[in-house]
């Protein structure tokens, strides 16, 4: 299932996938895979993404 919340939060900050990937220390393809729902990130990566986007885990990853 696509993670539209993550995509929306990233777009709201006018941030590209590459910038988010650089700030979280992963590849752009990994951010792309998370947004498309092809990959379930670990809690470590989830928290890193939340910190960069200023959101909570619930806001981005809870359905």
């Amino acid at each position, binding site marked *: 299932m696509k993670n539209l919340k993550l995509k929306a939060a990233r777009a709201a900050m006018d941030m590209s996938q*590459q910038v988010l990937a650089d700030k979280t220390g*992963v*590849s*752009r*393809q*990994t951010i792309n*895979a998370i947004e498309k729902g092809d990959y379930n990130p670990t809690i470590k990566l989830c928290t890193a993404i939340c910190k960069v986007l200023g959101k909570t885990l619930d806001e981005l990853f809870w359905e």
Partner: protein
Amino acid sequence: MNNGSLAFGIFLIFFFVLFFIIRKTSKRRDYDERQIAIRGEAYKAAYLVFLVLVILNGLVFVFSGKSIADPYVTAVVGMCVSLIVFVFKCLAKDAYIGVKMNAKRYVVIISILGALNIITAVINKNIISFSGNGCFLSISISFIIGVTFILIAAGIVWRLNENDGDEK
């Protein structure tokens, strides 16, 4: 011990020494968690393919009394096919290159290595022959390695071009 076996032994020793030196001196561990997981799956697939090739070779020998090729050629072909399976599985799932690695530099190095190996095989004029010697085939190891490197380089270039179309 014939010259081919000796050359193969030297190649293996050189390969493993180089592998451990690179592994010990490399400070970068820049594959992310998704890439590491996919690389694990790719290792598994490559290992299974190698096993299948070894079994196939054994079956051909049992039923025909002849090997497909010399033992060291068979081993190198098995390694190269496994390597291609590993690389292309990683390429297919976007785990082909680390976060901070320069893909274009690797493509250039791999292409040069491939071209040099193919040129060596062509100069020696022993690319492939249907020999006796207890085997069906005799293939130049340089040619096998050259083709492997060229295929890998082509695969990376193809994947880089594919990714240019993704959302930035």
